[in-house]
């Protein structure tokens, strides 16, 4: 008997062993540095199908294999040792779904080295002193391997140079720092409306701007997240005031930034009523379904990030063979970006070099093109390769109405003659317009600051008031009283007979048992 039990225990252990070794062995080949990168899901070239080389080979009629198109991580791991004295690196790559998820992970003490949050989250992390500034040598333009500073669009660079955030230093002292010290850009874009031009008149939509939310009943979606929809509601509430400013006046962009960052109570009360009236009119709030709903024709307009807009437009064209267009409200809109930041203490962990190399590797022009191709968003990286890629995508000199499209503001001196010739459709409301908005559009797009904790709490309350259906106070009281009464009744039924007072007196002639 005993022998048999021992045997069974051993065989069970034997069965478990391979699983254990597989679990622990999973990707843990030894390397000098383990770099933990935390990025948005599907926000990097993952290799294989859908990546640049793979699709190019397929286009040529060949059958590509996974090895022909390695992921960006594999490329980096291979590239790194040759450029850093043979030191090897392994990237532990994980992804998140929202900025808030990522923030919670960081606050809970999960150690990551390199993060890719959005604009406001970068500011929040900096203001809470959770991220580390880049080294001086990262900004050394004479070093050829500093791909980021050598290739980043001068326009994006200007935004990162001029934006500031207060970082707490000793005790209560707060120091102003430039965004560029803490973050290196990755992808960027605007927000606007993707719409079906056959059903929605382009000029009319231009005219309506943010009022579109209340003008196409049950045909337009808003975002199911507080920041984006609050921004839209600000645009809707203050559209007239926004339009009263001329793009030519001095400090136009700053004025708009001020209006789109109104969170004080006097403003937020107005925004609340705007949101409530918006809710009456829109089709719904969405986080992910908007793209599919637009492509399948359930709705006519979708409030979206430009990157998603490009995705919807491509999907509609390829799968359903119809056209979608993109529009940015005249009154101004949101300019957003995602950027790489390094977490506090990366220096002590000895990974700063590798983290900065990773950022630079992503900024290498051909890699920026690869990522851009795979994700479909617009990279902050300029340069000849990027311009060629834009030409490859959009240039069409044989179009019926070839239009010159000047992207000089974005490419600056990183590329020569940044003027594309494309069809007017592309330049006015197509994918080119969505990916690289013209200078006058970008001039009216502003960055939305992070909410400080108290404001955040207030705006979240506001959001929940908008999202939830509110009952009148009397209705709540009536319902609560009813529920309590039912509960009391049930308790009485259950335990009533155990309490002497409620016990029925025994009938005459019977004894109480």
């Amino acid at each position, binding site marked *: 008997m005993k022998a048999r039990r021992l045997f069974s225990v051993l065989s069970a252990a034997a069965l478990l062993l391979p699983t254990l070794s597989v679990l622990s062995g999973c990707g843990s080949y030894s390397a000098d540095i383990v770099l933990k990168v935390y990025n948005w899901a599907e926000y990097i070239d993952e290799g294989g199908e859908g990546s640049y080389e793979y699709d190019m080979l397929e286009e040529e009629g060949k059958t590509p294999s996974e090895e022909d198109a390695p992921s960006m991580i594999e490329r980096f791991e291979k590239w790194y040792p040759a450029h850093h004295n043979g030191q090897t690196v392994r990237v532990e790559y994980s992804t998140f779904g929202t900025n808030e998820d990522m923030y919670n992970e960081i606050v809970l003490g999960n150690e990551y080295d390199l993060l890719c949050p959005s604009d406001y989250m970068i500011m929040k992390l900096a203001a809470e002193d959770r991220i580390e500034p880049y080294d001086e040598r990262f900004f050394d333009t004479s070093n050829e391997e500093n791909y980021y500073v050598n290739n980043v669009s001068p326009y994006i660079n200007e935004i990162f140079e001029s934006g500031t955030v207060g970082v707490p230093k000793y005790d209560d002292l707060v120091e102003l720092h430039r965004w560029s010290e803490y973050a290196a850009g990755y992808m960027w874009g605007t927000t606007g409306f993707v719409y079906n031009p056959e059903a929605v008149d382009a000029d009319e939509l231009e005219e309506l701007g943010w009022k579109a939310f209340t003008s196409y009943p049950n045909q337009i979606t808003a975002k199911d997240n507080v920041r984006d929809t609050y921004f839209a509601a600000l645009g809707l509430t203050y559209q007239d005031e926004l339009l009263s400013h001329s793009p030519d006046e001095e400090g136009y962009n700053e004025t708009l930034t001020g209006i789109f960052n109104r969170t004080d109570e006097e403003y937020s009360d107005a925004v609340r009523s705007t949101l409530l009236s918006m809710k009456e009119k829109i*089709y719904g709030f969405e*986080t992910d379904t908007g793209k599919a709903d637009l492509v399948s024709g359930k709705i006519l307009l979708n409030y979206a990030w430009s990157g998603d807009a490009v995705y919807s437009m491509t999907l509609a064209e390829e799968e359903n063979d119809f056209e979608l267009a993109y529009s940015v409200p005249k009154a101004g809109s949101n300019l957003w970006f995602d950027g790489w930041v390094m977490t506090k203490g990366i220096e002590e962990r000895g990974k700063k070099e590798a983290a900065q190399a990773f950022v630079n590797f992503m900024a290498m022009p051909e890699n920026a093109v690869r990522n851009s191709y795979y994700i479909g968003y617009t990279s902050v990286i300029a340069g000849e390769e990027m311009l060629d890629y834009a030409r490859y995508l959009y240039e069409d000199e044989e179009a019926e109405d070839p239009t010159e499209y000047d992207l000089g503001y974005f490419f600056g001196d990183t590329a020569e003659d940044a003027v594309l010739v494309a069809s007017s459709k592309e330049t006015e409301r197509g994918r080119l317009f969505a990916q690289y908005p013209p200078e006058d559009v970008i001039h009216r797009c502003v960055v939305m600051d992070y909410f400080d904790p108290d404001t955040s709490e207030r705006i*979240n309350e506001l959001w*929940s*008031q908008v*999202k*939830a*259906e509110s*009952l009148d106070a009397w209705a709540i009281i009536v319902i609560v009283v009813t529920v309590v009464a039912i509960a009391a009744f049930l308790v009485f039924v259950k335990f009533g007979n155990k309490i002497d007072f409620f016990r029925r007196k025994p009938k005459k002639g019977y004894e109480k048992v």
Partner: protein
Amino acid sequence: MIRLRFSRKTLGIPYAVFLLFFVIAPMFVILFYAFTDRENHFTFMNFVRFFSDPTKLSTIVYSLVIALITTVVCLVIAFPIAYILARSKMKRKFVILMLFVTPMWINFVLRVNAIRELFNWMGLLGETNYFNTVFGMVYDFLPFMILPLYTTIMKIDNSLYEASADLGGNAFTTFTRVTLPLAMPGIMSGVTMVFLPSMTNYVVSDMLGNSMVTIIGKFIYEYFGTDWHMGSMVALVLLIVVFVSTWASGGFKAEENARGANL
């Protein structure tokens, strides 16, 4: 040599450890967050804020109403089905039962998406958000009502029906005096399994109600993005509501004759 002695109680140890780490400990974490502020100082503010905010109370009420309607509709649909299937002498009744149960094997998100397309085709999507939500929940939770009812009703001894007939009971009396009381454990178990998740399953309300219907589960989800303390308070209140309703319906009684009703 140490002799290891195994008793049947030893087998319970892994379960107890599991409970400790994944049920008891998280509850204390929720309790801690619910009564602390951002600086982790003890506070009643979340409690006060919850009960002084009409929005949150309204949402609780709305969720309760949605869950109640879902449960009643499920019960009304499931009881006849379970009864007919359990009492009939059909040869292929197993097949019919499987027809109701197999949807459970298909991915939940797929099913909800399918209904979404169906509603869109019928022109209901974006129009009747509350109806859509309740419909989706009923569709999703129906098997959880049918199965326990089926198992309890099936185990009712046939001689009880004969006795009822012998004593002059008509169909109605037989139902109220025999079937219903004996099916009670099944009803209770079905009700708990439908009522509780339908207060929190916000995927249904988001997909079919276009995020225009907010139930308490969505609230908890949203707060856990930005404010864990308030989120924990909402979760705690929900926990209490659930606890009270389970207790009131006798869910904690050791059911000797539950007869397999508790899945």
